[in-house]
């Protein structure tokens, strides 16, 4: 293929030094299931690959001070099987369990799912609903990049993997009673990109009559995981009722801007599916399956 060196540093500082020496010709690799393909197809080039999956501080999923943290080396299989994530952020565990196929999930990392910057990413869409942020370290220091700012365009991340190392993902631990769910429409159950996917997070009021906080992320209906903010606001404005849910789902379909695609179906169809799947998902979350 085309890289001249492959390094497996033991720490972040060492990784940054390697990247700095490569002066833009190096690139971070984690699972590599996207990157190796891109290098093979000459969509990208790199002289040096810096494999961060052996760095101990980037392994594991944890909880501290009200945050849930996921290291950059955590694979989709680990996230999908994590009892902590299944308990506090079910949508994320579900989404990670839908990526690719078992072999891909055993290798590909959730962080890579974000950095590959595909709007349909089954791991990244729930992270958008959870309002996650990414810790990015470079020789210039560190910064936290919110999911909303992590995407420049389709396939283009705001994180520069030739100079920066993304070390962890974090999000506020969902409150007691807060529910999250993931949904997905695809032609096959495995090895198939979604026609539509989405994650919903809902925190009902203690009275259970109203929704205190709603978050809806959808893909691929825009150039990045898309937050249906008007639909979220709609859900937060009135007492819970089947009509309110219908209205929010209708607004989300209006906000979403899917393209007509030979692979994924026509825009009107996909908008209709946004409405249908959101209605079903939110009703199920509020235990209002009938209606």
């Amino acid at each position, binding site marked *: 293929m085309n890289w*001249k060196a492959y390094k497996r540093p033991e720490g972040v500082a060492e990784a940054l030094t390697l990247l700095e020496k490569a002066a833009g010709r190096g690139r971070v690799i984690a699972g*590599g299931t996207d990157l*190796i*393909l891109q290098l093979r197809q000459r969509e990208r080039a790199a002289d040096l690959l810096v494999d961060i999956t052996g760095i101990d501080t980037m392994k594991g999923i944890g909880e501290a001070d009200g945050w849930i943290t996921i290291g950059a080396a955590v694979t989709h299989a680990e996230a999908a099987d994590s009892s902590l994530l299944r308990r506090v952020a079910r949508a994320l565990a579900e989404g990670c369990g839908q990526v690719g196929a078992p072999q891909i999930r055993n*290798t590909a990392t959730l962080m890579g799912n974000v950095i590959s910057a595909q709007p349909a990413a089954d791991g990244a869409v729930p992270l958008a609903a959870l309002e996650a942020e990414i810790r990015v370290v470079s020789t210039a220091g560190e910064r936290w990049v919110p999911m909303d700012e992590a995407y420049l365009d389709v396939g283009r991340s705001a994180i520069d993997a030739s100079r920066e190392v993304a070390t962890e993902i974090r999000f506020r631990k969902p409150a007691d009673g807060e529910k999250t769910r993931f949904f997905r429409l695809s032609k096959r159950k495995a090895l198939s990109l979604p026609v539509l996917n989405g994650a919903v997070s809902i925190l009902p009021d203690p009275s259970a009559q109203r929704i205190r906080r709603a978050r809806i992320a959808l893909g691929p209906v825009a150039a990045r995981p898309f937050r249906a903010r008007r639909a979220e606001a709609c859900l937060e404005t009135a007492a819970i009722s089947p009509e309110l849910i219908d209205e929010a789902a209708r607004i989300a379909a209006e906000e979403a801007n899917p393209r007509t695609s030979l692979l994924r179906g026509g825009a009107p169809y996909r908008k209709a599916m946004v409405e249908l799947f959101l209605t079903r998902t939110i009703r199920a979350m509020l235990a209002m399956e009938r209606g």
Partner: protein
Amino acid sequence: MAGEVKIKLRFNGVWREVETRPDRILLDLLREELGLTGTKKGCEAGECGACTVLMNGRAILSCLTPALKADGAEILTIEGLAEEGNLHPLQQAFLEKGAVQCGYCTPGMVLAAKALLDANPTPSVEEVKRAISGNLCRCTGYTKIIQAVRLAAEALRGDQRRKDEPAEAVKQAKTAVYP
């Protein structure tokens, strides 16, 4: 081109030191440098599962794995399944059920199934389907493949029972009265 680098891997139970190019892909290392051609090259794009091997016990795609990523790892390929000339229960079950048509997907299927059975000795049909969902069979022989995996699970459970209670089994065999 950059010089060769030395890596050490445990292939099918045996540690081996290999010198290879830094941009070698594990699949090519297996097939071209080690002569382990049981692992198949299918799509080379991570979509068919023909190149599946077990790395540290987990099913992975060797076509998307840099060989240097596997430095220090334990790799199991289809060549490592049979022991002393005896087929592994999975191989035996594929044979018995006729779960092999053209055979190209078979090594990957068997290894994906091995990863499943190592973690779950009593998989349901749905669990088998999920475990082999990353492996395409262009002959579409899935039904028999699923049957074979479940048959192998049964056989392996039998083996395990025999291992757990050897004395009892031997005693029974010795005292059994056959008509």
